[in-house]
């Protein structure tokens, strides 16, 4: 059973969680590409407003996201094979990665650097609010999940799985 096999591992050193973060970032980037570029066509392949910096940032992010998505799955497979996989930690990482990327996109790319906006030709404020609120919700859920797992691990102590009170 690949659930919380490593009770004593601090969450920040749990590879399951980092695999989740990598996949979360990659999945959110793919959602952005598929939903907002392809399906809704709100985003553009190239945005004049972003200029050269926006262009470079797009290309670099694209490469990093693709790599993180694939490498994340291999890292997860690696923890499964080692028997150190933790479904909870991976799920927490997934939400942290997805929310973190969404918030980075919403605050840094859209607002601070102003590479591109969520939609054009409309009042963008409600879109920004929904976008960033969704990002915060994902991030918060991931953080709560991570907190619960970290607490449970601390309580259970060094690998004494039998002593775990719940579950």
């Amino acid at each position, binding site marked *: 059973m690949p659930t919380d096999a490593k009770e004593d591992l601090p969450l920040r050193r749990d590879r399951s969680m980092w695999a989740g973060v990598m996949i979360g970032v990659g999945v959110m980037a793919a959602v952005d590409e598929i939903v907002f570029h392809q399906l809704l066509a709100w985003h553009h*392949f*190239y945005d*004049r407003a972003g200029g050269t910096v926006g*262009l*470079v940032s*797009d*290309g*670099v992010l*694209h*490469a*990093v996201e*693709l*790599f993180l998505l*694939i*490498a994340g*799955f*291999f890292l997860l*497979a*690696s923890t499964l*094979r*080692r*028997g*150190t996989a933790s479904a909870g930690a991976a799920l927490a990482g997934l939400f942290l990665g997805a929310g973190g990327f969404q918030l980075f996109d919403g605050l840094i790319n859209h607002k601070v650097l102003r590479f591109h906006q969520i939609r054009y030709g409309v009042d963008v404020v409600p879109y920004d609010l929904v976008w960033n609120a969704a990002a915060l919700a994902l991030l918060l859920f991931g953080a709560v999940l991570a907190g619960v797992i970290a607490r449970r691990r601390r309580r259970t102590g060094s690998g004494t799985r039998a002593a775990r009170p719940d579950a």
Partner: protein
Amino acid sequence: MHEHPGTGPGFLLLGALPFLAALALYLAAAAGVWRAGRPWPVYRSVLWSAGVVAAALGFLNPAAGPTTGSFPAHMGSHLLVGMAAPLLLVLAAPVTLALRALAVGRARRLSSFLRSPPLRVLSHPVPAGLLNTGGLWLLYTTPAAALLGSGAGHAAVQLHFLLAGCLFTNAVIGVDPNPHRAGFPLRTAVLLAALAGHGVLAKYLFAYPPPGVPTGQAETGAYLMYYGGALIEAALITVFCAQEYARAHRRGTAGGPVSSRVSGGAAAARRPAADPPVLRRSRRAPEDQRFR
């Protein structure tokens, strides 16, 4: 179309010759090695054949020719010749096959040629990546684009991208013996830089079409380069990660259950990740040993 030199059926036949030769040589070597009692994996022959076909399609596509070509067709050729074909050809381990098929003297000459200083420099990930992605940038953002206007120039550019693509792919995910393989972090960095360079160039071509290319064609070509490129890049990243995964688990790092494959020892751990166990167990010929 036939009035253009370099696109007629006669040219196509002549142009197909090097590809047919590459195919015949590989398959003959594989058959020879097999007859000598050392099975050569069939999937490698399949990879080589697919790679040769991809390269030939890219090279010989008349729609991408120097005088008849549209920009999207040209970009399709670039994806085939510079990215898809190298990925397939490199995974077919042609050098390993050659070393096994050749007589000892010739194999020794081949291996010392491969270890010569110029080739060692070129096969390092950084120069290989620069030749590959840097060459692409030079072609599309400088007057070098004029090369594409003539038949010979176009063929030279295609050949450059096939060779540079093979060098780069081999530096990142090569399965042939490589005594100086760069470490995982450097290969990751170069891979990411090359992917980013490719994506940025695609967007750049969308924003600033090369001289003489109509906006619509530049945009279609840029889409193809970006999304078509991403598909091949995804395959490249998957192989890259799979190799590292296999390597990590063959080493049997502390903490995890000891892998059964660890018994192969250090020599086995250094063997190409994709090599099937049957080859790893087999007695290695001296020509393989010289690389280690």
